[in-house]
């Protein structure tokens, strides 16, 4: 998995609430057996006209934000379907960090598995960042995961909370299956116990 340590990038404001995963990547693009290639279809319903041309009013189509790597969004970001295609699409598009007042649980977890950093901040702080982000390419925002700190273009800093295990995996680009497999013996012991107490669960 890709590491995430520190990122200085343009941030795009998309202050809509309840941006669901159907909106992030509509169902017609789910018929893939790969993780890559979904970036062009990210947000397609609000990003393109019916004829496939770009909508000028969509923030990520504006010249100042085409290279944005941070997205600042409204509450309950990523609600709806559990499709991991949503973080795959955002990542393939070039985004690396999503900042919002709240996230849907499954989406939030899926981000970490793909080297994408979701950051929860109170609405007042988001409002300040949205203000910064509205200045387009002139406003570089820096996200420092090690120190759990975001600095705005004017040097103001805010700190954020993050689960230490997830932070550790992201900082080091660790594959958590590998980490879990190190606990193989514990899993085996647990299974042995369970075979005794709930034998009906085991078919072999």
């Amino acid at each position, binding site marked *: 998995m890709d590491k995430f340590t520190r990122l200085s990038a343009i941030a795009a404001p998309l*202050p*809509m*609430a*309840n941006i*669901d995963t*159907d*909106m992030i990547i*509509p*169902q*017609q693009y*789910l*018929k*893939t*057996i*790969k*993780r890559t290639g979904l970036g062009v279809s990210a947000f397609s*319903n609000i990003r393109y006209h019916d004829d496939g041309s770009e909508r000028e009013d969509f923030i990520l189509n504006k010249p100042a934000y085409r290279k944005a790597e941070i997205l600042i969004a*409204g*509450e*309950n970001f990523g*609600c*709806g*379907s*559990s*499709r*991991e295609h949503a*973080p795959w699409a955002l990542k393939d598009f070039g985004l690396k960090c999503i900042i919002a007042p*709240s996230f*849907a*649980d*499954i989406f939030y*977890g*899926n981000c970490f*598995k*793909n080297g994408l950093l979701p950051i929860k901040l109170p609405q007042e702080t988001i409002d300040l960042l949205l203000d910064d982000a509205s200045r387009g390419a002139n406003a570089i925002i820096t996200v420092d995961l090690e120190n759990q700190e975001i600095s705005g273009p004017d040097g103001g800093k805010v700190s954020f909370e993050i*689960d*230490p*295990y997830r932070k550790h995996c992201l900082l080091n680009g660790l*594959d*958590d*299956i590998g980490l*879990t*497999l190190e*606990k193989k013996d*514990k*899993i085996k012991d*647990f*299974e042995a116990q*369970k075979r005794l*107490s*709930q*034998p*009906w*669960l085991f*078919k*072999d």
Partner: protein
Amino acid sequence: MTTNAKTLYDKLWQSHIVDVQEDGNCLIYIDRQIIHEVTSPQAFESLRAAGRTLAHPEAMLAVPDHNVPTSADRATAINAEDSQIQLDTLERNCKDFKVDYIPMMDARQGIVHIVGPEQGFTLPGMTIVCGDSHTSTHGAFGALAFGIGTSEVEHVMATQTLVLHKLKNMRVDVDGEVGKGVTAKDIALAIIGKIGTAGGTGHVIEFTGSAIRNLSMEGRMTLCNMSIEAGARSGIIAPDQTTFDYVMGRPQSPKGAAFEQAVAYWKTLPTDQGALYDKEIFLRGEDIVPQVTWGTSPENVLPITGIVPNPDDVTDKDRKIAMQRALDYMGLTAGQKLQDVKIDRVFVGSCTNGRIEDIRAVADVVRGKKVHDNVTAWVVPGSGLVKLQAEEEGLDKILRDAGFDWREPGCSMCLAMNADKLEPFERCASTSNRNFEGRQGQKGRTHLMSPAMAAAAAVTGHLTDVREL
């Protein structure tokens, strides 16, 4: 008040802890995983690439559902190459990794969340996962069931565990008796209307109260299915005699003495007296009337007797904008009576309402009546077994006589991944679970409701209070 009293969720959680990490996260044992064609290929691909194997292929069940055609000629009907690739990939992966696979043409095929319970693959007390958010459905059995992303699908495949943090306990209590024409779907929508689509975020919802206990297993599954629409990853209901009766005798459920032993264990699962919840919500069954959504989020819901709300009536700026956007998308005007809204299509089906009881409810409403001339109405059974049972009961005949299209099982127009979809601006009375923009087809307009309400709308051609039909 005893301090060591536990909730159902606490018990399910604690009985699956393999390891507690220093940071407080837990390694949780997963008893069962169900997979389908859309969210599993990338997991198998990475597993192969890393040279890993499945920890317990026998604890998995695979069935294609999202992409399968639901027309009578389904065996030859897939015309999209990418759909065929996903279906073939699932079949090949299951063969390579020795996973129990139900092919599309098998009578048991259907939507994952309908097939699992039907086969007795879903049992109380288990942890069950699937790469699909409506896995919460299985919580109806008193199992901890939740949707996961593809990376987690792979993690379970390789280790039979997941790294999770414990969520909070929330109780939604619905006491009293619901009136005639009010179903589990109406209870679910009324709850979402009350707490909002983020109301359950970070929580597992346990549904309690006499209105819940009086629900059949089908109704309980409908309710738990929609918990994700209330923001909760899981919804659970304590197992009781209704649960045990449903489970008994299913192909994969325990038999004889093993069943008795299992029931004795399952009876220890319900929440202890005095256990504490972090959040509690109370509704009265008598207060719930048939519900219908008017917007593009399940929380945009109102009693069928209501009128389309006015964005000018809300003060919050963001909410006002969202509301106006929803009305524009849905082609509705503030102040319009919901019952006057004309519809073009009816979709009865999905993992929310594609079970036998749902089809019976539709047949009851339309018996001897006709689908309105301006309406195209479909019933898509949730599984082949549901379809067979409905046919044995003669329900298909009632529906066909009324003018319904009686189709083959699958997700169909719940998410429009195949030929089954709305045309732009078509308006649909749907028994599915999501009314997001484009969910049932680009620019399609969805009104969520119960099967009985959808049937009533099919007959009159507009949104209708089934109690008055």
